[in-house]
């Protein structure tokens, strides 16, 4: 079974050819790590799956991107409907300058759900899934800005979970955090993969090794290798993957 797929994808920023003929599939309830040196296109690739690249003008996409078997770039697809089904966690924690409760409830509210009982329930379950409930349950009215960096990032994960996405995109979710917060977020990802399909971009190879089932290595806009993580870290097929993993460039 395939949860998400990219087929012969080419992507351009103006004249710049950012992604070159990439095909990749993602299985349900798996974690796929996208690795590669800066500027290799891994973040751009990730953002194809919730059409975030459209926010920058003058871009062009060729090829097919499907989620749950549906082409998300189809003309009759409403972009906000797509994004609702696909959660995203960003590099830096970016909570809204609102209360903790309102942050988590945001996705429901913009989709027309305002009933207090539902909101209460979803906020609690989302915060529990994000392993933050115990820390904030007495302070839901407090501003999210008062939380620590690690707490903020888990709040952003809870916020993404609240709309019950099928697919979770994570763009270097731990890169701005200290080691202890990073460990907590990694534990969380491990927990979450039971229910969600996760694609995570990371710079941290150990992290990729620890949490992912599959790894894709990007280099200069191309997907060099895509395989089981264990296989790829122990016995990569391509020389460039070998060099990157052993730290010869990066």
């Amino acid at each position, binding site marked *: 079974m395939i949860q998400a797929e990219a087929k012969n994808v080419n992507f351009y920023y103006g004249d710049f050819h950012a992604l070159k003929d990439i095909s990749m599939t993602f299985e349900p309830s798996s974690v796929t790590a996208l690795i590669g040196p800066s500027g290799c296109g891994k973040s751009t690739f990730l953002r194809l799956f*919730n059409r*975030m690249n459209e*926010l920058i*003008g003058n871009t062009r996409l060729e090829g097919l991107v499907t989620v749950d078997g549906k082409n998300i770039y189809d003309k009759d697809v409403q972009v*906000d*409907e797509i*994004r*609702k*089904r*696909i*959660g*995203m966690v*960003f590099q*830096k924690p*970016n*909570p*809204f*300058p609102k209360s903790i409760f309102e942050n988590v409830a*945001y*996705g429901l*509210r*913009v*989709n027309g759900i305002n009933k207090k009982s539902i909101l209460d329930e979803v906020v609690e379950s989302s915060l529990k899934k994000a392993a933050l409930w115990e820390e904030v349950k007495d302070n839901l009215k407090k501003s999210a800005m008062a939380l620590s960096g690690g707490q903020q990032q888990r709040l*952003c994960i809870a*916020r*993404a979970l609240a*709309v019950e996405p099928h697919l979770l995109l994570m763009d270097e979710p731990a890169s701005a955090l200290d080691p202890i917060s990073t460990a907590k977020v990694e534990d969380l990802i491990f927990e979450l993969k039971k229910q969600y399909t996760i694609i995570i971009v990371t710079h941290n190879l150990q992290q990729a090794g620890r949490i992912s089932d599959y790894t894709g290595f990007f280099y200069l806009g191309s997907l060099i290798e895509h395989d089981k993580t264990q296989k790829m870290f122990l016995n990569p097929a391509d020389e460039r993957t070998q060099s990157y993993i052993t730290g010869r460039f990066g």
Partner: protein
Amino acid sequence: MKRFRRLFEKFIEGILLSSSTITSLTVILIVLFLFREGLGIFNRSPLEHNFIIAVSKQNPVQDLSSDQLKAIFNQDITNWSQVGGKNDSIILFTVNDITNYFTEEELGASLEYLPQKLNEFIVSHPGALMHISDKNLPSDFQGHTIHVKNISVKDFLFGKQWYPTSEPIPSFGIWPMIIGTFLVTLGALLIALPLGLATALFLAEVADIRLRNIVKPLVELLAGIPSVVYGFFGLIVIVPMVQSTFKLDVGETVLAGSLVLGIMALPTIVTIAEDALRTTPRSLKEASLALGATRWQTLRRVTIPYAKSGISAAIILGIGRAIGETMAVLMVTGNASNVPHSFLVPARTLPATIAAELGEAPYGGLHFKALFALGIVLFLFTIMINLTVAYVRNKERK
């Protein structure tokens, strides 16, 4: 050599430092000169310099207010008993009356007998009230001067009459101008706010980069057009339009002023509000969009709340611009000195009054000082606006 260089650098730094103090110095000088001239209107008699009001020594009345004096000169008050004196009718005697009472021979070729004649007059007319220059008074004057109550700040701010040149007592009430300025500004805001904020939202969130690069310079160009050109356009186009639309006798009205001012305040509001909207971090907007919010929901729930203080600053600065604008308003509002009671009557604003009248006010006279006092009021408005903006922006930083 090294030492010379160090000295040289210090010297240059000194020049830079003194340049940077010039703006502060100018503000201080503005305050100083405005107050020096403008405060002269307060705590002094409303009579022109050298002029006095004199009555017979037997008259018990010691002081009169400006209003009482005006009533006497308008002959609304004709008996001394009405102002606390004896039951005796008031006989007015002003400079203009001199030749009615005395012939030229009696006064002498260069009026050398005038003081003596005045003395005779005050003695023979116990009910007389003289308005006369103190230079003409004899040293052994047989009457006493009346103390006229000073112009108070309250009279000045809330007085409903502005007759700066009326004789013998001018009126300096600026209430009509305050209300006029307020109404014109209010109308301008009602026009400029919806248009300006919508344009700012369009530029910041709706327009693609190409369209923005066309529209934004055009809006900035709108800011560059001189106010007198706006006034001219208003006079030729907007005033007749207002007149025919509402079937008025005159088109020069508060509404015409508001329309012109509204257009003029647009660029201020658009540019500052747009800048404020752009300060919202991209990551917040992306987070909202990633949760399935539409761009409009993101704008309403994330971007606008985040930029709130910047947008408020834009509105306040727009108000400041509208309050201080002179020429355009002067040309289209008709400058009637009554308190305006609707948008469809003529009115005058504080700055327009200064511009229209300062040229005719004799240097150093009461009228001249009153116009500087108007300047003080206007200046205080500006300071208030700036303090509010500083406060709003400061709150944002926290």
